[in-house]
C-alpha cells in the first residue's frame, strides 16, 4: 500500500498525462464527467457518480471506425483504430461493475475489437466511496462501495490523502511510474479498512430484496403491471444513456459526395425507432413494450445469459428520470421488497 498527499494531485495528473491519455472526473459547469485531462481543468474527486457513467470511455457514444472514399477503381476503405493507452482515474465501485457487465457482452465471441483494445490498454483506478447518496443501492446487487475487485488500482480517500492498493500488474506498474510522489502506507491499513467498512454500512437498503426476482419475472411478461408503469414514461433516453450497464448501439453511415464515415452510436430501447424494421413493422409498437423490455433486460434477460442482474444500484435513473420511473420504484412494484420503505 502506498499513499499520496492530496496537495500532490496536480503533480500526479501532470506526471500521468505525460505518458498516457488521462481521464478524470471534471466539472464542466454543474455536470461532472470523465474527460481527457488538460491543465487548468477542475477535477472533482468528491462527486459521487459522474453524470455520464465511465462506460463512455470504452463504449463511446459516437465512434467512427471506418472511412471510405469512392475512387475510379472502386471504394477504398480505411479502418480507424482507437487511440493508445489511457489511465481512467476515479471510477466508483458500482461503475466498475457496470464496465465488467459490459465486458460480458462485448468480450464474448464475436469479440468487439474496438471495445477490447480500449479495455486492454486502459488502467482503471477505482475510488472507494466515502459518503453514499440516499439514492444509492449498490449493496442490493452485492457490490461493496469499499472495494472494487477487478480494478487495476484501488484508491481510498482518507481525507488528506489517497491510499493506493495495486490489484493487477497494470496497477503495480502504474504505482512504480508515480513512485516519486508516494509514501509508504502500511501503517494506514486499519484506517483504510474503517473507511471502506463505513461506506458499506452507509448505503441505504430501501427495504429492497431481489432474491428470486429473476425467476418471478419469467412468468410476468404479460402481467398487467407493465400497462401501468409505461403511462407516465416520457419516452426519452435519459435512463438508458445514463445507465452504466446499457449497451445498445446503432450503426450509421455519413456520406457526403465521394467520401463517408461509418460510425456506431448509442441507441435507446426507449425510442420508437429502436425496433422499427425496414418493412414498417415494429415489434415494440408502444411505450408499454419498450418500458417492459428495459426492465426485463436488466432483471431477467441479462441475468439468464450472464448470471448477474444488469443493475449496479448507482442511482442515476433514480436521480435523473423526469417522472421517477426508476429501478427502485419498479423493483418495489414488482414485489422485490422485504420490509419498510426508503
Amino acid at each position, binding site marked *: 500500500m502506498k499513499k499520496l498527499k492530496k496537495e500532490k494531485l496536480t503533480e500526479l495528473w501532470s506526471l500521468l498525462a505525460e505518458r498516457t491519455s488521462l481521464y478524470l472526473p471534471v466539472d*464542466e*459547469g*454543474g*455536470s461532472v*464527467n470523465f474527460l481527457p485531462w488538460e491543465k487548468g481543468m477542475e477535477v472533482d474527486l468528491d462527486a459521487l457518480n459522474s*453524470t*455520464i457513467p465511465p462506460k463512455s470511455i470504452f463504449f463511446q*457514444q*459516437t465512434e467512427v471506425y471506418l472511412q471510405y472514399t469512392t475512387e475510379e477503381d472502386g471504394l477504398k476503405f480505411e479502418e480507424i483504430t482507437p487511440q493508445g493507452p489511457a489511465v481512467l482515474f476515479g471510477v466508483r465501485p458500482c461503475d466498475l461493475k457496470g464496465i465488467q457487465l459490459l465486458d460480458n457482452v462485448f468480450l464474448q465471441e464475436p469479440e468487439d475489437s474496438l471495445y477490447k483494445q480500449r479495455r486492454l490498454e486502459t488502467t482503471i483506478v477505482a475510488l472507494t466511496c466515502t459518503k453514499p*447518496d*440516499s*439514492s444509492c443501492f449498490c449493496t442490493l446487487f452485492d457490490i461493496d462501495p469499499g472495494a472494487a475487485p477487478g480494478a487495476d488500482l484501488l484508491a481510498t480517500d482518507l481525507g488528506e490523502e489517497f491510499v493506493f492498493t495495486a490489484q493487477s500488474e497494470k496497477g503495480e506498474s502504474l504505482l512504480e511510474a508515480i513512485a516519486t510522489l508516494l509514501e509508504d502506507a502500511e501503517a494506514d491499513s486499519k484506517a483504510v479498512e474503517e473507511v471502506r467498512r463505513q461506506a458499506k454500512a*452507509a448505503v*441505504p437498503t*430501501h427495504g429492497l430484496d431481489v432474491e428470486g426476482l429473476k425467476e418471478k419475472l419469467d412468468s410476468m411478461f404479460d402481467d398487467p403491471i407493465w400497462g*401501468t408503469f409505461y*403511462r*407516465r414514461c*416520457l*419516452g*426519452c*433516453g*435519459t435512463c438508458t*444513456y*445514463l445507465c452504466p450497464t446499457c449497451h445498445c448501439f*446503432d450503426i*450509421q453511415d*455519413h456520406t457526403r459526395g465521394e467520401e463517408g464515415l461509418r*460510425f456506431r*452510436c*448509442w*441507441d*435507446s430501447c426507449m*425510442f*420508437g*425507432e429502436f425496433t*422499427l424494421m425496414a418493412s414498417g413493422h415494429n415489434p415494440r409498437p408502444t411505450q408499454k413494450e419498450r418500458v417492459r423490455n428495459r426492465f426485463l433486460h436488466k432483471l431477467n434477460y441479462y441475468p439468464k445469459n450472464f448470471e448477474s442482474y444488469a443493475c449496479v444500484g448507482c442511482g442515476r435513473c*433514480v436521480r*435523473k428520470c*423526469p*417522472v*421517477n*420511473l426508476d429501478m*427502485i*420504484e419498479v423493483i*418495489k412494484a414488482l414485489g422485490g421488497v422485504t420490509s419498510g*420503505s*426508503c
Partner: protein
Amino acid sequence: MKPTVDKLKEIAAETLVGKKAELILGWQKGSFWWQSFPAFIEKQEELDSLTWDPFCVANLSIYLLEELKRKKKVALFVKGCDALAINRLLQDKCIEREQVLLYGLPCKGMADRAKIEAAVGEELSIREVRRDGDEFIVLTDNGEQHLDASNYLLDKCLSCRYPNPIVYDQLLAQEIDTFPVKERFQSVVKLENSTFEERYLYWSGHFNRCLRCFACRNVCPACNCRECIFDQNEPRWLGKANILSENQFCHLIRAYHVAGRCIDCGECQRVCPMDIPLQELNRKLIKDLNELYGDYDAGTDPEEPQPLGTFKLDDPASFSES
C-alpha cells in the same frame, strides 16, 4: 386557503362516482420525499395514492395526447403553468375543450430538492417536505426545520408570471396574489450584450454536453407533432452522431419549431439531465418576437392570432425587397 390533498381526493372521488371523466391525472408519491410523479387514476381504490405537495412539478397535460386516443374525457389537475399548456394544446387543435375537465390549483412554486438538501445538510435523514404559507417545513429524523420557501424554489418558478391557472372548470382554492418575480429576460439580455465569440463558446459548450435523450422535446407541450422531424429516417434530417454540429442543429431547429408557441414553462430545462439552459434559448425567441410583432404571451388566449401563425394583407414588411 390553500388546496389540500383531501380536497384533491374529494374532487377526484366525485369525478369517478359521477362518471364525469374516465381517467384522472394527478400526482402520487414515490419512494423518496422529493418524488411526486404523474398518477393515472381510474378506480376508486386508487384515489388514496393522490398527493399534492411541493414536488408536484410534472405537467400532466402532455399525457392528454396519448390518453385521449383511448378516452373520451379526462380530468386533470392544472397549476398555472400547466393551464398555459392546456391552451397550447387547444390552440394547436390537439385536444378539444369538452374532452378535458380541469381542476385548477393556484401554486406558489415547487421546491428544489438540491437547494433544500444543501440547506438542511443531512440529506439521508429528510423524511418529508411540506408547504405551510410562505415556509417549507422539512421533517428530518432530528426534528423540524422551517425554511423561507422563496429561497428554495425551482429556478423556473422564480420567474413564474401565472401562479393562478388561466383556464379551468373548477378552482380548488382561492386565487393567490401574484408575487414579485425575477425578470425573465435578464440572462438573455446578458447574452445579447456579449460578443459573437462569447456567445458561440457559451452555447457550443452547452450543446457539446447534450446527450440527445430528447427529454426536452418529450416533455414540451408545444412539441406535439404526430411525427417529429428528429424521428424521421427517410430522409434522416438529424444525424444520429452525437457531435456538436448535429446537436446544434437539433436544438436550434427545436427552438424555431416552438417559436411563438413556447409557453415558457421551463420544463425543457428542468428535465435536462445535462443542465443545458434551454429556457434561455426559447426566451431569446420570445423576446425577439415581442420586439418585432408586439407583446405576445403564448398560452394565455387560444383564440388570439399567433405572431408566426397569421398574416396581414397590409403587412408593412413584405416578402419581397421591392
